[in-house]
């Protein structure tokens, strides 16, 4: 049972399309597990539609429709898709639904092992995900059953969504689908439950020049800028 949900601000910005991609990925991941938020987003999309249809129309250029037709006629890619040829959402869903949300499954090509995992100690590893969002860093975090994430202070806001297993911090225990926001300055030390490994999606507001989750994680201890070395993306 999902207990922690994105607040209305995230759902509205998601529905409006203005949420940064990495945070939108967190919301979409939560929606995969949460029907009540899915219903809310559906309602918010209706609000968007009403606002959209109430706009003052702006005349398009007179050649616009003809341009469209010539693109349609000239390019085989623009043939109407037949239902059968459309990559079936159903088949994609069947292979991943029981395990991973669609976007995550795509990013790791249905195989979590294909990601470039980096370990910190024996209990914790993370893999950066490649998103077109330079302001934030997005990673999958994997904590071994009973293991802990190194204690760290948040330098920016962090959103975490639980994908498998569960973890606890000083405040509560978080289960699959839970959407947890930690703000700048909070210190916490998540610990996975004893019986199962924990997999989470996490996105962290990040200064643009730093590109390594690990470096920033350790920053409070070194308290100085790393060199210009940038970490490799998988």
């Amino acid at each position, binding site marked *: 049972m999902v207990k922690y949900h994105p607040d209305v601000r995230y759902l509205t910005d998601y529905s409006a399309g203005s949420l940064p991609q990495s945070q939108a990925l967190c919301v979409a991941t939560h929606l995969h597990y949460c029907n009540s938020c899915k219903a809310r987003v559906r309602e918010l999309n209706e609000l968007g539609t009403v606002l959209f249809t109430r706009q003052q129309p702006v005349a398009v250029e007179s050649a616009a429709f003809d341009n469209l037709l010539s693109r349609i006629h000239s390019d085989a890619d623009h043939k109407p898709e037949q*239902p059968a040829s459309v990559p079936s959402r159903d088949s994609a869903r069947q292979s991943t639904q029981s395990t991973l949300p669609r976007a995550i499954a795509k990013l790791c090509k249905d195989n979590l092992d294909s990601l470039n995992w980096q370990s910190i100690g024996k209990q914790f590893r993370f893999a950066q995900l490649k998103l077109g969002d330079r302001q934030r860093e997005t990673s999958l975090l994997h904590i071994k059953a009973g293991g802990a994430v190194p204690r760290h202070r948040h330098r920016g806001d962090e959103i975490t969504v639980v994908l498998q297993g569960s973890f606890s911090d000083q405040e509560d225990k978080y289960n699959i689908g839970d959407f947890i926001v930690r703000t700048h300055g909070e210190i916490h030390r998540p610990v996975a439950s004893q019986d199962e490994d924990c997999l989470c999606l996490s996105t962290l507001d990040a200064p643009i020049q730093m590109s390594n989750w690990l470096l920033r994680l350790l920053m409070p201890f070194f308290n100085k800028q790393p060199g210009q070395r940038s970490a490799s993306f998988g």
Partner: protein
Amino acid sequence: METDSDTITQDSASEAAAARWIDCLARISADRDLVAYKALFDHFAPLIKSFAYKIPSLQESETFGEDLVQETMLKVWTRASTFDPGLSSPGTWIFTIARNMRIDLLRKQARHSVNTVSLYQDDDDSSELDMEDIWFEDETSDVFNLLLQERTRKQVNESLLTLPPEQADILRRVYLEDKSHSEVAAELHLPLGTVKSRVRLALNKLKLVVDR
């Protein structure tokens, strides 16, 4: 006919029109019917262009509006067969395509401008995700959903005009101008909490979000 954006009479007209757009999409899907496509284009293209230019930073751009019309309407053509009237209304379907394409075009523009500054070596590391992997259409089709959506739309249409101006204004900024809550807060010199509570009040008034 439906040029006035602030009349209530539009509601019933658009309800009736929905049936017509459903028919147009079915004809495009079955027969590649250009007459049906033109009818859709004439109605939705000017709304899409209007939607494109709601973003203040793009109001100077001569091409963005037409580009968004082209990309969105092209998707409407190629995807017509995937439109499921049991899943969403034609208006919602086209709005979500336009929203996704706008995100996509904005991202391409941003990447281009970053490239020209050449700050990064790995500039072409675009995301491996498509917009639709994140902003996906809902996949469950059922009549109950559709009825709920219709009721929601009606509710929103009816109560939108009763909102206090500052609440309506914030909804427009969030939905049409592509601004997140934080950006709206910065622009209006308001604390984020104030923006959040105005949106929440507006949504409550529209009976959209009942506090958990």
